[in-house]
């Protein structure tokens, strides 16, 4: 070991360097804080505006009444029920298909050009503007299959098409992140591929899958354009009885009310937005609770 040239940490040049490092770190922290603050500011502004405009409008009548031409009697119950039914259809279709597709593509399918193409296509589908799905729904579900117009069934199917790629992508990533050691361990004990997948991989991937589902459903809940295309825009006075009855959804209801000339509807609109946000929070909360319940540490 040569005795020459050990690093001189106490040199002024060195100290200057170190100080500059800390300075740039502080700068970055400030910038980051600023960025977060800005976004939060906008969100806060939105929430405060809506809250002040709409909080007075929230009453039992709003929540239980159906749409009406008279602002005093108009309520969101019909739209709420429509949203719920639509979400149920969406969930019921997108979740199983999405999860099974993710499992098949990750665990069972061979790796070749065809599966690569499928992966690319699914990634692209997730980015397609929602209105295209509306057009698809219009063309296929309504015109070709002659399903009832404006029904949660059709709305749900359209939104399912839109949500499924998100679930597949999240599902694949969640499955990919399950450590191979767990798979090896199960195989080593003599489990078949199906047993490995459903007894071990899926339970561990479930939190990730549920996260993807939450994201997908939240997006679907707030979608307006595709549902407008398949006709869930009509004025509907009575709440829907089942998924085949004509209905509307909350975002569309808000859109329709915001178009109204009558000034009384302004307050209603804001109130409805609050209801929508609360509904979304509730749904997200439930999904996060479910995800945490299934979360396992390994």
């Amino acid at each position, binding site marked *: 070991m040569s005795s020459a040239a050990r690093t001189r940490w106490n040199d002024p040049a060195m100290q200057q360097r170190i100080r500059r490092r800390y300075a740039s770190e502080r700068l970055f922290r400030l910038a980051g804080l600023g960025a977060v603050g800005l976004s939060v500011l906008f969100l806060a502004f939105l929430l405060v505006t809506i809250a002040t405009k709409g909080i007075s409008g929230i009453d039992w009548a709003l929540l239980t009444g159906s749409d009406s031409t008279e602002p005093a009697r108009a309520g969101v119950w019909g739209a709420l029920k429509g949203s719920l039914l639509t979400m149920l259809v969406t969930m019921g279709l997108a979740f199983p298909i999405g999860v099974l597709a993710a499992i098949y593509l990750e665990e069972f399918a061979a790796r070749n050009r065809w599966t690569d193409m499928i992966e690319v296509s699914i990634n692209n589908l997730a980015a397609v503007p929602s209105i295209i799905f509306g057009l698809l729904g219009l063309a296929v579900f309504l015109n070709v299959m002659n399903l009832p117009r404006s029904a949660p069934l059709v709305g749900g199917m359209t939104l399912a098409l839109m949500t499924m790629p998100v679930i597949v992508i999240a599902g694949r990533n969640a499955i990919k992140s399950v450590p191979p*050691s767990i798979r*090896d*361990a*199960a*195989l*080593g*004990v*003599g*489990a078949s591929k199906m047993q490995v997948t459903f*007894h071990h991989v899926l339970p561990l991937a479930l939190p990730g899958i549920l996260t993807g589902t939450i994201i997908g459903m939240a997006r679907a809940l707030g979608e307006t354009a595709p549902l407008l295309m398949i006709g869930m825009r009509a004025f509907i006075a009575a709440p829907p009885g089942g998924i085949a009855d004509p209905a509307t959804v909350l975002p569309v209801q808000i859109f329709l009310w915001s178009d109204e000339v009558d000034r009384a509807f302004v307050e209603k609109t804001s109130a409805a937005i609050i209801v929508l946000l609360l509904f979304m929070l509730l749904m997200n909360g439930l999904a996060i609770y479910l995800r945490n319940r299934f979360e396992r540490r390994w």
Partner: protein
Amino acid sequence: MTANHSTVTLPDPRSAEAAEPPASRIAKMATHGVSVFYGDKQALKDVSINIYDDLVTAFIGPSGCGKSTFLRCLNRMNDTIAAARVTGRIDLDGEDINRSRMDVVQLRARVGMVFQKPNPFPKSIFENVSYGPRIHGLAQSKAELAEIVEKSLKRAGLWDEVKDRLQESGTALSGGQQQRLCIARAIAVDPEVILMDEPCSALDPIATAKIEELIHELRGRYAIAIVTHNMQQAARVSQRTAFFHLGEMVEYGKTSEMFTNPRQQRTTDYITGRYG
């Protein structure tokens, strides 16, 4: 009575002999000319080794020499790697495990495996051990299943430490305990051969010693093959050793001879620390 040298009995020479089976014994697993290719690259060239009951066979060699690849051939774990291709013949009790109609799931129950890094399932200790017997239908009742779990944990030397907390997570145990849990899990399906891939490399010396002692106890019931990069461990634990180098099996023989007087120069270089 004070002991003098006439009352000291010499160890029975036959007891050492009992540890060595006669040369004519039939092998539990026999491989003939096994080669493994990853795409175009040949990872293993023409390996022919026998694994005997009641013996521990160690595979030693430098990194990347193919010993783990060879071990994984014995329970067809290389099947899970798409690019891997195995040629040659591997027999279990005389039956070719690749060509015959032997079910790979059944093979893996008969030839169990313990991995380098302990990998218990993220479930309870009880569920970890009972998983294998459950999926193979080895227990007729819940009581029987509990019996199997207890027996396996006892054989793995873990029962006393966990008998009061079988419902706790398997991953909450220490490293050495986790590895013994994995051994119990492998034992629970009543295998005939146990393959161990560097089972102690992630463990501290005391945990390692416990596992080595466990291997010694298990030797009577199962044929054991162990891959290790620790030569002293191979010397302590095995009765037969095979030295691998660059995908070839260079030398195979009795452990006592391999470490005192090997036949091949490459083997000598490796075990005396003159390699690399």
